[in-house]
């Protein structure tokens, strides 16, 4: 880090400190964070500065945790340290380690310190100047939390919130949840092997922040758990532990437990304010402590070997040379660079270059990670987007106003087009604000696979593509469950056991591919596995057994696979812990339907299965075709439209009086006359040529007869509310450009409605004819679940 920026940061810290109020906990916490940050920043360049910063952060931690009696004097001490630091940095090339220690001692001694323990701690840490920084900070940690105290704390793991500030607690819970999410995400990064060091630091920080706040709020179980996890991570930070396999499991588990504890606190907050976290916490604590006591369980990990990686990349050394250099270290804490230089393997200049590069990548990462964010209430965001929608409509109403058009004034036209541009930009921004990447959702799935694999005893590898794909917030909220079900199915039913796989000539470990991508204005989620695939015979057998199907008609592959989406359908012989209750795919279908999406299943026996989920980009906006029926306008979602064509009389074939079908290139298509179905007054003698919009819902295909197509529109979907909640054929309302409400047709709903109306109006035989859209179809008997496939 350049001396200049270091100086600037120190100045800023000093300013913060001057403005600091001792009671202001968040500010203290921020300052604490800044010191840690600074310490991390000058880890390489200025170990002396780093150490002093860590000392300051320790003191702050104690202040936050209320472990010192006289806060003011401690703050003063930090102030002195900062001025000592400033001097050190200004003096240029850096005072020697010893000099800075002396300064710190002076500074500390000159201040009135009522807590001799801390001073002693700081001094003792400094006196061990030769020790590496992390050991020093670990030393500090141990002083903060002597093991006896932690043990004592474990005995009183009950929380009593009766006297707590509920608003503060609620804030804490939210914040802590976020930290848990970050920690989890970083753990996944570690598992994936990307930026291990950074990830460990991030997890450490998350636990650390939780610990601080929990200490302040007197949430003992959370405090203790966070503390022990932090200690384990600290070991990892120092390199005496490798975060992988069992250790990662334990940390995952700690994050989960943390979540449960937070949940417990939340419930306690709503009820009697009492929550006993002991049962949850104690087993975890024991495990964590056993690791802390014996870190040698894990193998050593060279956190600084990344310099080695860079050197290898630069071609300066080979892996063997580095390995041998590592084995010939003179002192355990000697830096790799030093070793290499000492052994004359690499010139010092090259090492320095590598170090610079290392720092560069680090600061880049920090810069990219810290984007300024504002948290907004989602209600407000939705309201903003709604209002923008209104603005767009109002704008088009003005722009297309006949009076204004009549004036034909170039100035007005220019102003209106200007307004138009601005509203359009606003609309785009509003939409973009609702977009979030699917990454967190995918990460949860990756984690689920990890756990499922362990439970099922199978070996599964998950490949994720397109996690940066952005989708609407409402979709992200709804996509989790369906994806989870499908992943479970893939692991439980799809992937075979390793032995079976080997027998079939496949890799031992199965592969599941999860993909998210945009295509043609829709977003797709694909889940592909290379397992045994779907068993067509079994599905058909099961369907017949359950009475979901009769008739001997040949079904196409697509239709057969579609059967597994039916409620209560499961081909699994036994219900396992993971899946097989037959609710999975049904839930998936319901969720996907609710999002106006489509599911497609493809499978090759023995090769695997591919489930593709097609969803609209957003649930708030619908791309629809505005159609006119007599005097009314309706909107048909473009997603469901297959094609549209002019309807001439010759095409229509009447079936037994009322059912009408057309022959569409060999396929028979049932016609639904919207005006008749909706009871819109019309002249039956009217023989105007009409238009058929061919729509599709799942495998059902029908033709909707309308008067004319008015064009494609993007409209904001509005909920019609519960008054019309039972009108399944209405997907919602949309505000049209004239300010009126247009009704959006739910294709699935209208098909059901039409079939039902005909059903009731006609006898058994006629019903058959209506159903016989594309040839013979399996017809249900009266009281069975009717399933008819096209």
């Amino acid at each position, binding site marked *: 880090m350049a001396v200049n920026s270091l100086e600037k940061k120190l100045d800023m810290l000093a300013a913060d400190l001057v403005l600091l109020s001792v009671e202001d906990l968040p500010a203290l916490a921020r300052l604490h964070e800044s010191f840690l940050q600074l310490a991390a920043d000058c880890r390489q360049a200025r170990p002396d500065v780093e150490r002093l910063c860590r000392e300051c952060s320790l003191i702050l931690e104690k202040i936050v945790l209320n472990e010192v009696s006289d806060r003011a004097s401690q703050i003063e001490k930090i102030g002195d340290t900062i001025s000592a630091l400033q001097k050190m940095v200004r003096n240029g090339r850096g005072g020697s380690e010893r000099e800075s220690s002396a300064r710190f001692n002076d500074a500390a001694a000159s201040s009135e310190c009522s807590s001799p323990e801390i001073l002693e701690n700081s001094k003792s840490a400094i006196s061990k100047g030769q020790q590496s920084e992390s050991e020093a900070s670990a030393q500090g940690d141990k002083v903060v939390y002597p093991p006896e105290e932690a043990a004592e704390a474990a005995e009183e793991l009950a929380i009593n919130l009766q006297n707590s500030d509920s608003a503060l607690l609620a804030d804490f819970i939210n914040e802590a949840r976020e930290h848990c999410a970050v920690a989890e995400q970083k753990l996944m990064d570690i598992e994936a092997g990307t930026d291990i060091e950074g990830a460990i630091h991030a997890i450490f920080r998350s636990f650390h922040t939780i610990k601080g706040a929990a200490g302040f709020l007197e949430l003992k179980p959370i405090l203790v758990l966070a503390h022990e996890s932090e200690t384990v991570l600290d070991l990892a930070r120092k390199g005496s532990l490798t975060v992988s396999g069992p250790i990662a499991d334990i940390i995952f588990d700690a994050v989960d437990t943390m979540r449960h504890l937070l949940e417990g606190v939340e419930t306690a907050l709503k009820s009697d304010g009492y929550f006993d976290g002991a049962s949850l916490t104690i087993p975890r604590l024991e495990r964590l402590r056993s690791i802390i006591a014996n870190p040698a369980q894990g193998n050593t990990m060279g956190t600084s070997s990344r310099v080695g990686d860079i050197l290898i990349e630069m071609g300066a050394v080979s892996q063997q040379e580095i390995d041998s250099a590592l084995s010939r270290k003179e002192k355990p804490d000697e830096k790799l660079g030093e070793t290499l230089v000492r052994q004359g393997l690499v010139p010092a200049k090259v090492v320095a270059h590598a170090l610079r590069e290392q720092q560069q990548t680090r600061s880049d990462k920090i810069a990219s990670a810290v984007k300024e964010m504002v948290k907004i209430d989602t209600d407000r965001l939705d309201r903003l987007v*709604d*209002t923008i*929608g*209104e603005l767009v409509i109002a704008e088009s109403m003005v722009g297309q106003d006949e009076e204004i058009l009549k004036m034909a004034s170039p100035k007005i036209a220019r102003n209106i087009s200007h307004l138009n541009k601005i509203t359009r930009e606003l609309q785009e921004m509003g939409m973009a604000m609702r977009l979030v990447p699917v990454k967190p959702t995918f990460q949860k799935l990756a984690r689920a696979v990890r756990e499922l694999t362990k439970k099922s005893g199978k070996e599964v590898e998950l490949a994720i593509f397109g996690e940066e794909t952005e989708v609407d917030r409402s979709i992200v909220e709804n996509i989790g469950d369906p994806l989870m079900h499908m992943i479970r199915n893939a692991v439980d039913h799809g992937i075979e056991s390793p032995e079976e796989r080997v027998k079939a000539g496949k890799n031992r470990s199965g592969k599941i591919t999860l993909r998210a991508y945009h295509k043609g204005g829709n977003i797709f989620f694909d889940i592909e596995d290379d397992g045994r695939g779907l068993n067509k015979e079994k599905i058909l057998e099961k369907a017949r057994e359950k009475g979901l199907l009769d008739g001997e008609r040949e079904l196409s592959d697509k239709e057969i696979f579609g059967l597994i*989406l039916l*409620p209560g359908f499961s081909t699994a012989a036994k219900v396992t812990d993971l899946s097989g209750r037959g609710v999975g795919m049904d839930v998936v*279908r*319901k969720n996907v*339907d609710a999002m106006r999406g489509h599911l497609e299943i493809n499978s090759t026996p023995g090769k695997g299965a591919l489930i593709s989920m097609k969803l609209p980009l957003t649930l708030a906006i619908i791309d629809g075709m505005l159609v006119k029926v007599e005097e*009314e306008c309706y909107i048909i979602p473009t997603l469901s439209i297959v094609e549209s064509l002019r309807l001439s009389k010759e095409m229509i074939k009447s079936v037994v009086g009322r059912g009408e079908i057309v022959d569409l290139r060999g396929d028979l*298509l*049932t016609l639904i006359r919207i005006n008749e*179905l*909706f*009871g*819109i007054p019309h002249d039956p003698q009217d023989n105007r040529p009409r238009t058929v919009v061919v729509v599709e*819902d*799942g*495998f*059902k*295909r*029908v033709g909707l007869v309308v008067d004319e197509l008015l064009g494609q529109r993007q409209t904001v979907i*509005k909920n*019609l*509310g*519960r*008054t*019309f909640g*039972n*009108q*399944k*054929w*209405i997907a919602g*309302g949309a*505000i049209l450009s004239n*300010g*009126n*409400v*247009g*009704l959006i047709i739910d294709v*699935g709903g209208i*098909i*059901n*409605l039409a*079939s*039902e*109306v005909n*059903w009731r109006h006609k006898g058994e035989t006629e019903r058959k004819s*209506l*159903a016989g*859209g*594309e040839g013979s*179809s399996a017809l*249900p008997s009266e009281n069975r*679940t*009717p*399933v*008819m*496939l*096209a």
Partner: protein
Amino acid sequence: MQEKKRYQKSGQNEVASAANRAGKYLTFRLAAEEYGLEILKVREIIGLMDITKVPRTPNHIRGVINLRGKVIPVLDLRTKFGMEPAPDTEETCIIVVDVAAADNSLLMGILVDAVSEVLDIKEEEIEESPEFGCDIDTSFILGIGKVKNSVKILLDIDRVLTSADLESAEHIARESDGEKIPSLGLID
């Protein structure tokens, strides 16, 4: 019944004042009759605008309107009360009311012939709704206000709209649903 209603009101809403029905009422005309609505329930009054019909709903549901971006249902009170339908006039307007539904409140428009005035009706001017015999349900009537020789029928709008209306909407919907067909039950 009335006693219970009053009791609930005083418990829930102090503004509705001292355990009685006295207070400000928005009065409106429907054919030859005058009605009153508690002013606290009224959100706004808007002139007649284009109403989008929603097919397959009961006749007294005129359709939906766009109230500054919110889609709200509009109920034709004439039809609802079984009166002869009349053509819309200049005076016809929509009163937007806040209806207490089961879990939250719901905005709804009611179409009336004309809005008259806001009246302060005292407790002594309000009489219990008369019994017309068991065939006629008067539970949606809070009472009858007698002001300056005229009679105002004071409506309990929550009952007018939620109970009877939503029920009938659901009833119609159920009827049209017929035998429940699951979403995959298909025909083509």
